[in-house]
């Protein structure tokens, strides 16, 4: 490689490194704002702001879903297996919503620390399985049976 090309290569790589560092610093500074949701532990530690709309994410605790008999009112507990947050929601839940499923709820925390949600999104994991495999796993006890 001749010296001129080598010099140009170093200039290009230098620009790239500079931009990468700048973007990296900006993203680190914005860390909290880029997170889509707060985990129950963060909410319990008081990291989530009180009087604004926040998103809370976690797993729906097994056996915690209570539906109202005469309305769309539903209450459930979301957990990250360390802390819990109770969520209250009025509306139709997405198809993937079930106990043990990851969800993200958007709403305000009230005085008792209950999140009054106006939107619930279901999160699915990166695992895909055919139904027969799931059935076989459940029969052999490697997966919990659904209620």
């Amino acid at each position, binding site marked *: 490689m001749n010296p001129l090309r080598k010099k140009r290569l170093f200039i290009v790589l230098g620009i*790239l490194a500079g931009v990468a560092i700048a973007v990296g610093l900006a993203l680190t500074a914005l860390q909290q704002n*880029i997170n889509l949701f707060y985990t129950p532990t963060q909410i319990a530690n008081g990291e989530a702001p009180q009087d604004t709309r926040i998103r809370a994410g976690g797993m729906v605790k097994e056996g915690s879903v209570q539906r109202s008999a005469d309305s769309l009112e539903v209450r459930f507990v979301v957990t990250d297996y360390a802390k819990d947050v109770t969520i209250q929601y009025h509306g139709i839940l997405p198809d993937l919503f079930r106990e043990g499923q990851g969800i993200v709820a958007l709403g305000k925390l009230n005085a008792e620390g209950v999140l009054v949600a106006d*939107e619930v*999104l279901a999160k699915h994991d990166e695992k*895909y399985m055919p*139904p027969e495999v799931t059935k076989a796993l459940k029969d052999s006890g490697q997966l919990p049976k659904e209620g």
Partner: protein
Amino acid sequence: MNWTWFHKWGSPKWFYEMSGRWVFWLALVAAVLLPVGLVWGLAFAPPDYQQGNSFRIIYIHVPTAILAQSCYLLLAVAGVIGLVWKMKLADVALQQAAPIGAWMTFLALLTGAIWGKPTWGSWWVWDARLTSMLILLFLYFGVIALGQAISNRDSAAKACAVLAVVGVVNIPIIKYSVEWWNTLHQPATFKLTERPAMPPEMWLPLLVMVIGFYCFFAAVLLLRMRLEVLRREARSSWVKAEIERQLGGRK
């Protein structure tokens, strides 16, 4: 180190002759793999235990998303070669790949939105993965617009190359967004170091689709580049001879 293989790329004529052979095989492989993968994935692969049949959009969504990012890497590599070695072909590749990459990004976003509605309950959320992918689309738009806005070919090439190189910072952000931040988008199913979180009867058609998309992309890119090379070299004698030959006396 022997650089001759690399310097050959500096000759548009050499590229035109070689690519003519490659295009045929790439197009053939794409024409076989894409229908096979599509039918296999959409009709024969088993449904997912939670999402049922709606997960099948993965067979379009994942290949387009992979291509969108690979194409940008290609833009960046072409940008570096164009800036450092001043190779004409690098600018041709950069300009011709950008619209294909933009379409791939658009398709990935569109299929993602269609998939997101039934599974998440929302067409769009401003999470890190979706937002960085939208930025990728705007980067492609930027490269295309910049290339067309500057009339001097050399200045346009330089400006586009710089934008392509700088924008490549976004690619690792897209890739690792699902690990660095809490996102609604799930983490990667396929990792180089681990077994895929998916059985073979599901990922084999996906692999076929990804390879098919790569071949399709390469074939379309080469076709576009060949045309652009002819256009830019229109005044050279080999192009005149080639056009004469293609027209075959039809005058």
